[in-house]
């Protein structure tokens, strides 16, 4: 297989604009796959793969055919220590005043192999595939606040980045820990990292031009920051794991007349629910006072559940450990998926686009999903035997939720 060199167009542009004839960069190789990503400047996200030196060299149009010799000469000029591993040399040429072309070589001692050079496009070309279905330009200007970056908030953030949302504010005080890995988008190579930074990188891998602000704070202790972030965002995604933060966010949404989506999985992810808070509609506190709502949040961490009072102090350590029953990532995905759809709906409200018809159908404020007929869903009808079309598993149900006239939070 021919080696492939990926070159970032904006890096190339910067090199050309600098007026230099030759400069050093870094390449990262996916071992055994002959795939190389080359950089002249620090990328926004830490690159993956094994590092090696890289040389960028300007070549006149008349010498372009002899680029291999020029590459070998550039390689020869490197200090011996740099040649202990293979080196990528990229020869760049401008033709007819504005047409850029380049040739790449992988040189190891006396051996040189020419690589196919591919370009990673600039911003304007990254989201061309979404055009027509979603108003990419409109989403690019939207700002989404995501609070809580666990197995819910993190994948939602990445999906919104993939859809072309251009601005994010991420809030979470937690770090990636071993017990998170199985369900989180981040892997073992990110253990110990702040979730806000790890998810920021995951966003930038999908959209290197996204603007991402991060706060590793407990919002319950930084209510002014919370209010500022909600005020400047078009949408707030609430993916926290306890009710005090949800109530605090709800209070700010009500105060500022802003839109928010509250999503969660319930015990062992046997199901989940989503609440959409819109100005004038029912708020999160209206929902929790409603008999339809079950307060049985998923318990994923004993220490945190103890702190929050979800597991009372009189429960023994053994019983407390038994209460930690996490669900499967695959059972959380349907909730995340619906959250993303509702988020895109809210962000493209008022804009004619390919998903506009969803706005006419996703009009409910509260949505319920069941993965299995367990616990609160135990009396739902079996999926394969439901002639009377009762509530069953693996489908969404929308609920028209009334605003609680006596709600101490949102009554005016």
């Amino acid at each position, binding site marked *: 297989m021919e080696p492939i060199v990926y070159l970032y167009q904006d890096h190339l542009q910067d090199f050309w604009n600098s007026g230099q004839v030759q400069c050093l960069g870094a390449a990262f190789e996916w071992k055994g796959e002959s795939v190389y990503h080359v950089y002249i400047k620090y990328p926004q996200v830490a690159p993956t793969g094994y590092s090696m030196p890289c040389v960028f060299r300007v070549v006149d149009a008349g010498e372009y055919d002899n680029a291999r010799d020029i590459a070998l000469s550039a390689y020869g000029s490197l200090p011996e220590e740099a040649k202990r591993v293979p080196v990528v040399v990229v020869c760049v040429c401008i033709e007819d005043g504005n047409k850029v072309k380049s040739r790449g070589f992988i040189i190891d001692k006396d051996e040189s192999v020419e690589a196919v050079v591919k370009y990673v496009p600039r911003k304007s070309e990254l989201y061309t595939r979404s055009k027509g279905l979603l108003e990419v330009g409109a989403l690019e200007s939207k700002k989404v606040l995501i609070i809580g970056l666990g197995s819910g908030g993190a994948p939602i953030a990445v999906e919104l980045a993939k859809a072309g949302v251009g601005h994010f504010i991420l809030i979470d005080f937690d770090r990636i820990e071993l017990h998170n890995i199985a369900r989180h988008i981040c892997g073992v190579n990110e253990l110990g990292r702040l979730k806000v930074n790890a998810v920021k990188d995951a966003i930038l891998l999908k959209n290197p031009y996204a603007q991402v602000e991060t706060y590793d704070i407990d919002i319950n202790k930084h209510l002014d920051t919370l209010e500022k972030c909600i005020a400047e965002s078009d949408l707030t995604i609430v993916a926290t794991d306890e009710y005090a933060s949800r109530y605090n966010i709800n209070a700010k949404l009500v105060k500022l007349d802003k839109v928010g989506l509250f999503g969660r999985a319930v015990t062992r992810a046997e199901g989940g629910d989503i609440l959409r808070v819109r100005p004038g509609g029912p708020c999160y506190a*209206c929902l929790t006072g409603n008999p339809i709502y079950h307060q049985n949040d998923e318990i994923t961490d004993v220490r945190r559940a103890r702190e929050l009072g*979800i597991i009372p102090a*009189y429960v023994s350590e053994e019983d407390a450990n038994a209460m930690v029953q996490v669900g499967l990532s695959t059972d959380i995905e349907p909730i995340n998926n619906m959250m993303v759809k509702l988020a895109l709906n809210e962000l493209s409200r008022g804009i004619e686009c390919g998903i506009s018809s969803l706005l006419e159908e996703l009009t409910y404020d509260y949505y319920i999903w069941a993965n299995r007929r367990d616990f609160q869903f135990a009396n739902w009808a079996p999926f394969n035997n439901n002639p009377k079309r009762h509530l069953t598993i693996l489908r969404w149900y929308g609920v028209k939720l009334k605003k609680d006239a006596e*709600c101490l939070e949102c009554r005016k």
Partner: protein
Amino acid sequence: MTYERYQIELGVLENSTIKSKQYKFMDMDTAHPYLAVAIQTNSLRCYVVKIDLSNDYPYNIPKVFITSPKPLLTRSGGSMLEASHSMHTLQGENGCVRVCHYGYEDWAPNRITLYQIIIKVRIWLEMYECHLKTGKTLDEFLKGANY
């Protein structure tokens, strides 16, 4: 607690069966505000209750302590400062017994006010006195009462 919520709580208490001289909001402009309430049981015994409003009330369940008599003891003279499911207590602080009132699953800040917490504590105190008379645990009296 926001000023709006404080006004709501005051309004509910003023229209309740609790007389205004029985309660007082304390240290409201500090980081450790609380409500002090004097509660008299059917036996005419008087208790002072402290409802801690410092931990982001009403979005977190407030801690409730019996500050007088201090410390509250069991019928056999034992300590009640430990968390106990059968006695409906949580870990006490500063020598004060901490009463378990609303649990995580029942807490709804948009419809539960301090008045309702006071009523629950009154019920807890009545059951505590039943415990003093009979030796039975509070849970035996409260079982099925959806306390």
